[in-house]
C-alpha cells in the first residue's frame, strides 16, 4: 500500500481539472445546443481519460499509481498529492461514466439555464474526482467541501419539488456539520504525526499525507477519538442511519442528475475504506467500534428496507433503498476480512450502476407522468414495454439477482459478514429478502396489472437517448455480473494490503518508512 509509482505525465491532474476548465469554457458558449454538445464532449473526453487510466492501471498491485506530489502549504504540511490505487481507480471511471449519462439525460429534461446547469454538473465532477484522487487529507477535505457548492445550486435551481430550497440548505448544513468534526479528526492525525516527527527528527514536521501518516503509530485511545470524528463526517455524507434524514429530501426535491450523483457515488463509505480503516486499524477492529457500526449497519438495512416498503413515491423508495444498501456496504467494511472489504468495494461500484440506473428510470417515468407517485402509474408495461423491461432488469440487479452485478457484491459481503459473525450475517440476509419485496411489490403495482387512470394512451416508450442510457447501464451490470474478474483484479492488491494492515495494526514498521522513500 505504501509503494508509489509516479507517472511521467500528470494524467490525474488532467482528469481532475478537465471538467472545471470545461465548465469555464462553457461559460463562453452562447448557443444552448452548442452548450449541450460541448458539455457532452468534455464528459466523453473525461471518460476516455479515465478509461485510459483504468487500462494502464497495474492490477493485483497495492501500489499508489500515477502519483503526483507537489508541496502546497509547507508551513502546515499540506501537499497536492494525487494517486489512484485499487480502491479509488474504479470510482474515477464510475464518476466519468455517470457524468456522461447525466449529460445525455439532461439533454432535453433540463430546459432553463442549461449553461449554468452543465457548468455546475462539470464542476461537481471535478470535486468528486478530487475526493477520490486526493491522498492528502486536506486536499481531500477541500474537494469534499467544495462539492457542496455545485450541489447546493443544482438542488436549488433545478430541483423539481416545492421543498427544494429547504432540501438544499439541509443537505449543505448536515454535511457541513459532519465535516467540521472530520476536520478536527484530520487535524488530530496531523498533530499526532507532528509529535512523532519532532521526536524522531523527521522531515516534514507536519503532514496530512496519507502515506506519511500511515508510517506513524497512533495510540489506541487517540485512534478511537479520531475514528469517531472522521466517522461523523463520513456518516453524514454517506448517509448512514441515523444521519440520513437529509437524503430523502435531497433526492426527492433535487434534479435527477444530482440524485444520480448523490445515490450513485458512495463518497461517505469511500471515506471509511480510504482513510478510517487504514489509518486507524486498531480502532476499526476494536470491539465497541465494530459493534456500534455493525448495529447501525444492520439497523440501516432493516429500517431502509421497511421504510422503502411503505413508500408510494418511487424516488423516496429509492432513497430508503439506498440507505438500506449502505447498511450492507458498512457491515461488509467492518467485517474487516478480505471478502467483506472486497464485497463492499464492489457493491459501492455496483450501486453506481444499479441505484443510479433506477434514478434514471425514475427520471424517465417523471418526464412521462410529471410525477413518481404510484398513483400516476399502473400497467405501464403495456404502453412502454421497453421502459418496463429495463426497469425490471436494473431493479433485479439492485436486489442482487444472480447473473447481475448486485449478486456478486452482496454475496461477498454476506460471506465476509458470516465469517466475522454468524448473528450479523443472519440478520443481514433478511435485508436481502426485504429488498426483493419492496422492489418487486412496487414494480408490480406500477408496471403490471390493469392500466392506471393517469396513464394515457399517447404515452411513448423510450426514445433513443434514453435507450443509450439504459443500455449502457445494462451492459455494465451484465459485465460485472457475469465476468467480474477484471474488476476484482484491480481491487485485489489494495484490498489485500488493507487486510494486512488491519491484522498487523498501526504499529510502526521501519520497512514501511523505507518504502515511502522509494518514489
Amino acid at each position: 500500500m505504501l509503494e508509489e509509482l509516479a507517472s511521467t505525465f500528470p494524467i490525474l491532474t488532467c482528469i481532475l481539472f478537465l471538467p472545471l476548465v470545461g465548465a469555464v469554457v462553457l461559460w463562453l458558449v452562447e448557443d444552448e445546443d452548442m452548450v449541450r454538445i460541448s458539455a457532452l464532449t468534455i464528459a466523453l473526453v473525461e471518460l476516455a481519460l479515465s478509461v485510459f487510466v483504468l487500462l494502464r492501471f497495474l492490477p493485483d498491485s497495492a501500489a499508489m499509481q500515477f502519483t503526483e506530489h507537489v508541496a502546497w502549504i509547507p508551513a502546515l504540511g499540506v501537499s497536492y498529492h494525487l494517486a489512484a490505487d485499487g480502491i479509488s481507480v474504479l470510482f474515477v471511471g464510475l464518476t466519468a461514466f455517470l457524468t456522461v449519462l447525466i449529460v445525455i439525460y439532461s439533454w432535453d429534461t433540463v430546459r432553463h439555464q442549461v449553461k449554468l446547469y452543465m457548468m455546475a454538473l462539470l464542476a461537481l465532477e471535478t470535486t468528486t474526482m478530487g475526493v477520490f484522487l486526493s491522498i492528502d487529507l486536506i486536499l481531500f477535505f477541500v474537494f469534499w467541501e467544495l462539492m457542496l457548492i455545485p450541489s447546493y445550486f443544482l438542488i436549488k435551481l433545478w430541483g423539481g419539488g416545492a421543498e427544494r430550497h429547504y432540501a438544499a440548505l439541509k443537505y449543505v448544513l448536515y454535511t457541513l456539520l459532519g465535516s467540521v468534526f472530520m476536520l478536527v479528526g484530520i487535524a488530530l492525525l496531523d498533530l499526532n504525526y507532528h509529535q512523532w516527527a519532532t521526536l524522531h527528527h523527521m522531515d516534514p514536521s507536519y503532514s496530512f499525507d496519507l502515506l506519511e501518516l500511515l508510517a506513524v503509530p497512533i495510540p489506541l485511545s487517540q485512534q478511537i477519538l479520531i475514528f469517531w470524528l472522521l466517522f461523523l463526517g463520513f456518516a453524514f455524507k454517506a448517509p448512514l442511519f441515523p444521519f440520513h434524514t437529509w437524503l430523502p429530501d435531497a433526492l426527492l426535491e433535487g434534479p435527477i442528475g444530482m440524485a444520480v450523483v448523490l445515490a450513485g457515488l458512495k463518497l461517505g463509505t469511500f471515506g471509511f475504506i480510504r482513510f478510517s480503516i487504514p489509518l486507524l486499524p486498531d480502532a476499526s477492529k476494536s470491539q465497541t467500534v465494530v459493534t456500534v457500526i455493525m448495529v447501525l449497519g444492520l439497523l440501516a438495512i432493516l429500517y431502509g428496507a421497511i421504510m422503502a416498503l411503505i413508500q408510494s413515491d418511487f424516488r423516496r423508495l429509492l432513497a430508503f433503498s439506498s440507505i438500506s444498501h449502505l447498511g450492507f456496504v458498512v457491515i461488509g467494511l467492518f467485517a474487516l476480512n478480505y471478502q467483506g472489504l472486497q464485497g463492499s468495494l464492489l457493491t459501492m461500484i455496483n450501486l453506481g450502476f444499479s441505484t443510479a440506473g433506477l434514478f434514471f428510470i425514475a427520471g424517465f417515468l417523471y418526464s412521462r407522468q410529471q410525477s413518481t407517485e404510484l398513483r400516476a402509474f399502473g400497467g405501464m408495461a403495456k404502453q412502454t414495454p421497453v421502459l418496463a423491461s429495463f426497469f425490471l432488469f436494473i431493479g433485479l440487479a439492485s436486489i442482487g439477482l444472480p447473473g447481475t452485478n448486485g449478486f456478486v457484491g452482496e454475496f461477498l459481503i454476506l460471506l465476509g459478514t458470516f465469517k466475522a459473525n454468524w448473528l450479523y450475517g443472519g440478520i443481514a440476509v433478511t435485508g436481502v429478502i426485504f429488498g426483493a419485496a419492496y422492489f418487486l411489490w412496487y414494480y408490480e403495482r406500477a408496471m403490471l396489472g390493469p392500466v392506471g387512470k393517469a396513464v394515457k394512451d399517447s404515452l411513448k416508450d423510450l426514445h433513443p437517448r434514453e435507450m443509450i442510457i439504459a443500455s449502457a447501464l445494462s451492459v455494465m451490470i451484465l459485465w460485472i455480473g457475469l465476468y467480474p474478474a477484471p474488476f476484482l483484479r484491480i481491487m485485489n492488491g489494495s484490498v489485500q494490503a488493507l487486510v494486512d494492515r488491519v491484522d498487523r495494526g498501526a504499529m510502526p514498521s521501519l520497512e514501511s518508512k523505507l518504502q515511502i522513500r522509494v518514489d
Partner: protein
Amino acid sequence: MNFSLTMSPSDLLLLLPEIILTAWLCLILIVDFSFPRLPNEQLAYLSIAGLGATLGCLVWFNIGGVTGALFANMFVLDRMALFFKMFIVGSTMLVILASIDYVHRFKFFRGEYYFLIVMSALGMMFMASANDLLSVFVTLEFSTFGFYVLVAYLREDMASNEAGIKFFILGVFAAGLLAYGISLVYGETGQLVFSDMKLTEVTPGLAIGFLLIFGALGFKIGAVPFHSWIPDTYHGSPTPVTAFLSIAPKGAAFAILLRMFFVALATFKPIWVLLLVAASVLSMTYGNIVAIAQKNMKRLLAYSGIAQIGNVLIGLAAGTKMGNDAILFYLLTYFFANLGAFAIIIAVSEAIGSEEIDDYSGLGRRSPFLAFSMLIFLLSLAGVPPLAGFIGKLYIFIAAMKEGLYVLITVGLINIVISMYYYLIVVKKMYISEPHDPSRIRVSGPIKAVLYVCLAGTLIIGIYPQPFTDWVVSATMMFSGLVDVPLTAIPPAVINP
C-alpha cells in the same frame, strides 16, 4: 525614566513611513484649501499616492530588514509592526478607492474626509509600533479621534448621528478604562514599557489593571462583551467608514494585544488563556447567532465580524508562535473578504439606494460580477475551501489544537456551520430570488478595482498560500523564543476533550 532626545539620521529613518504620511497629510489639507474647485476624485488619488509611497517605504523596510527601536523602546519597528503597518496602509488605500463614489453624499467637507481617513491611518500605524503603555494610550486615542468624526459624517442622517454619539460615548468610556488600567499597572510595576515589566506574581492591582486594558482593546476589536457599539455604529456610519472601521483598527489593536500578552504577560499564560477562551467562545457564538436574524447587510457583516474576531481570539488563546502566525494570516484573509464584501455593499447602495438583504434579490441577474464576488467573499468568510478563509481557519484551528484547546475548537467548528446558514441566506437572495427591479447594476471603475484586488487576494491566498504563510512566519519571528508554560493551571474541562 530618561528620554534621550538626540536622534541620529538613522533613527529618523525608522520613522520614515510615518514622516512621509504626516507630510502628505499636510499636503492634502493645503491642496484642499488652495483649490476648492478640485474634483474630489483628484484628492482621493492624491491620498492614495501618498499612501502608496508609504507602502513602498514599508515594503522596502520589510525586504531590507530595517528594524529598531526609538524613544527608549516606546516605539519599536520590528517585522510584526511592519506587517501591521502594511495591513493598515493597504486597507486605507482600498477604502479610499471605494469611497470615491460615495463621497458625493457628503454635502460639506469632502476634502477633509480624506484627510481624516489618512490621519486615522497614521494613528494606527503608530499603534502598530506602540510598545509601552503611554504610547498605547496616545496612539489609540489619536487613531480613534478621526473615527469619531468619520462615523458621524452623514450630517443629515439620523442613523449616522446616532452612530457617532454611541461610538463617541462608548469610545470615551473605553479610553477611561484604558487610562485607569494603565495607572494601576504603572502603580504596581513602576514600568511603562512592556519589555521592562519583569512580572513575577499576580497582584490584584495588576490583574485589574490588565483586565481594564484588555477591555479597552476588546472595545477596539469588538469582542464580546465589549461589542455593543458595533451593530449600530456599523449600520449608521457611511459605508466606506464602516469598511475601514471593520478592518484597520482591528489589525492595529491586535498588534498591541500581541505585544501585551506575549511580551509583558508571557509568564502568566495559564491565567489569560482562560480569559481569551471565554471571550472567544462568547464572541463566536453571540456574533453568529444574532447574525442569523439580521435584515440589513451592514448589520449582518457587523455581527459576522464579531464572530470572526472570536475566531482570531482562538489563535491568541493558543498562546504560541504558531498561534500568532495564524492570527496574522487570518487577519489577512479577513482583510480581503470583508473589504470586498463592503465594497459590494457600496456599489449596490449606489445603484439601488438600499442596504437591506431583501434588496439583494436577483443580484445574480442584475450584476453577475457583483453577485459572484459577493459569493466568493461570503464563502471565504464562512471558511469554504479552497478560498483564503478556509486556510486561515485551518491555521488557527491547528495552532489551537496543538495546545489542546478542544472545547474551543468544537465551539468554533459548530459556529462555522451556523455562519454558513446566514451566508447562504444572502447567496439564496442573490441567485434564487426574483429581482424586485430587473434593471442591470453598473459598477464604477474604482469599486471594480477594489473588487479585483480583493478577489485576487482571496483566491491567491486560498490556492497558493505559501508566500503568505512565509511572510507571517517571518513577521512573528520575535515570538520564536516564547516560553512554553505548561497549561497546568487550566481546569481539565477546557483542555481535555
